[in-house]
């Protein structure tokens, strides 16, 4: 066991996967010589050579389209889109091609590829470096979508994603690449290396897709969340003293419905929390699942806490970002109903 940042854990997962399987190739803008603008692929080109880890032209469409063809050939491409906000030019290749290839050819051609992309705000990235597009992927059948919240999960989920026979989207909350973030931007930054959740077993097994983790056990209410918001929910529980159960979904599709039902049936109250904009967000799916499967256990309507329905505003990040105050207030309100 060792402490590492999420970035180091992602590097480690690449390293392990590339060492185990020489079909794994890594490419994207700046990922080769430089190791990625966030350094998630640092050292890979040096260790595995230029044909296993290389830079690409600035063409998200090209990166994903080439990866689809390469996966169909028999490789396992694990590609990086520099920011999730840049994936729109490639969206057709992801949605109409990667996600459909197995289905449309009845299994004759498959697309075992991974698309990693940093998501989320809190880094003063404004509108084009802060988006959380998970709903655009979870709505697409044929894709799997994961969001880690700790270095160990980032490593373990990426290993599973690379091993998976289908295309997997890995959304990496960039705000917690280097340390957990509890929504208090005015507090000193804590590194994963000094945090209990920063512990990673570099010989550890992959974390299976589709399995949630309970980050905090509680009786009063359930918070269903993922990514950066896991840490915000933990902070809110601590600051309000409310005995909340925090469920970190880790995989958004396929989602761990059993764990959701177990927790909500136990607490009878549920908050759905995400950073992405509210309307038609992934939270709507969670609320639907909870009402469909846990209706008779609910003691109050399910509450959504999310980013406002505006583009991400540069100067107003901390108002936009659902921080512990908003989550705590929602918790208090929910207990009063």
């Amino acid at each position, binding site marked *: 066991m060792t402490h590492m940042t999420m970035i180091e854990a992602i590097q480690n997962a690449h390293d392990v996967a590339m060492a185990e399987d020489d079909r794994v190739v890594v490419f994207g803008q700046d990922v080769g010589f430089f190791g990625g603008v966030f350094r998630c692929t640092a050292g890979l080109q040096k260790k595995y050579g230029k044909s296993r880890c290389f830079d690409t032209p600035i063409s998200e*469409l090209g990166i994903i389209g080439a990866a689809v*063809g*390469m996966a169909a050939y028999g490789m396992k491409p694990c590609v990086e889109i520099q920011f999730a906000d840049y994936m729109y*030019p490639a969206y057709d290749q992801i949605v109409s091609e990667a996600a459909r290839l197995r289905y449309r050819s009845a299994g004759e051609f498959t697309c075992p590829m991974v698309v990693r992309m940093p998501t989320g705000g809190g880094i003063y990235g404004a509108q084009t470096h802060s988006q959380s597009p998970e709903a655009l992927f979870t709505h697409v059948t*044929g894709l799997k979508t994961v969001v880690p919240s700790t270095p160990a999960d980032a490593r373990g989920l990426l290993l599973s994603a690379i091993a998976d026979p289908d295309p997997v989207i890995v959304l990496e909350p960039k705000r917690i690449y280097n340390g957990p973030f509890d929504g208090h931007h005015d507090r000193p930054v804590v590194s994963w290396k000094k945090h209990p959740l920063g512990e990673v077993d570099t010989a550890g097994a992959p974390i299976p897709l589709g399995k949630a983790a309970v980050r905090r056990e509680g009786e009063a209410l359930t918070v269903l969340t993922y990514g950066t918001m896991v840490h915000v929910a933990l902070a809110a529980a601590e600051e309000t003293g409310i005995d909340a159960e925090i469920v970190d979904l880790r995989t958004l599709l396929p989602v761990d419905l059993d764990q959701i039902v177990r927790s909500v049936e136990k607490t009878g109250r549920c908050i759905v929390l995400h950073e992405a904009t509210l309307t038609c967000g992934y939270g709507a799916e969670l609320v639907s699942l909870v009402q469909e499967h846990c209706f008779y256990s609910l003691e109050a309507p399910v509450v959504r806490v999310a980013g406002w329905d505006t583009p991400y505003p540069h100067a107003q990040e901390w108002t936009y970002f659902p921080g512990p105050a908003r989550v705590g207030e929602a918790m208090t309100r929910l207990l009063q109903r």
Partner: protein
Amino acid sequence: MATTFATPPPGASPAPLTLNVPEPEFRPGDTPDFSNAVIPRAGTVRRPPVDVDPQEIRDLAFTIIRVLNRKGEAVGEWAEALDPDVLRKGLRDMLTLRAYDARMMKAQRQGKTSFYMQHLGEEAVSCAFQGALARGDMNFPTYRQAGLLISSGYPLMKMMCQVYSNDGDTARGRQLPVFYSSKEHGFFSISGNLATQYIQAVGWAMGSAIRGDTKIAAAWIGEGATAENDFHAALVFASTYKAPVILNVVNNQWAISTFQGIARGGSGTFAARGLGFGIPALRVDGNDYLAVLAVARWAAERARRNLGPTLVEYVTYRAGGHSTSDDPTAYRPKEESNAWPLGDPVLRLKAHLVAIGEWSDERHVQAEAEAHDTVVSAQREAEAIGTLMSGNLPSPRDMFEDVYAEMPPHLKRQRQESGY
């Protein structure tokens, strides 16, 4: 402070600006006349060595490589010594494709399927090209390259099952008619979204190069779809990584009702799109079986020798409608396909075989009848399984398969809910 603008420079035109919207030369009611089209005589375009510096053959992107002359003779540096059996097979492939198209067009009109797209006039492009590929190579076709399957020996009956979406369809009734797929025959599953396969072909070829394999890929696109971003991404990636891929552009003059000048703009030719990327670019007579085969082999050899991609534009003409949903008389003169100066690919190869004493009118009539019989008997077999309208479709249970390698719980629940 008030904003001030400089006065217009001397000589600036005061006239209002206008938008240029290119128009085809002929519309319904016009008499098509291609006498001014610049078509080099067969045999006059040189054949460079495959390792030529692309800078030295820029002119080949603006001419048309042709082998068969009006007398049916194979002439010039691109004429290869071909076994007459190869040529006879080529002719039979084209006749089979033409007969297959005719039957499937009729089947669609009879309500046996929803849709069909025929190849009339373009048969040489795909039937000849396959002759340059080896087992294991992969085509990334668009929807007018069924000749690749036919010339590689793929069963017509299986193609028809795909068109009928019946229980014999390997794609399990999930794809539009003519969206075939066969890994074994080097035919990548067709997508309805234009041009997506172009960059995928480059990625596939990059995979082969990364593995140190010997297989090459062929990308296919129509001239209209070259306007899509994917085409340009493919050229960037192919030239950057010198991927072992043949980048084919089938210029059949018409993207549904839109003439080729709309996608081409002022660039001269579609082949010329390759020049800015340093990719060798050739333009070839797409109705000349021998020229297509020769150029395809040249490009394939370049790819196999690790010399990188080649862009090939096939100049041809879509004599039929875009699909069974299209009426071309609404946007072009009826007589245009007959006036098209590059002729009928079937008749041109026939004339060549006759000219070299390896074919006759009688044999041709017999070959046409054989192609027809082969197609009819395959059709009988396919229809015995079912058609889109008559039933015996794949099980609705199949609808839930292959979304993922392993069915996730939410899909299992939905399948159960559907009753299957």
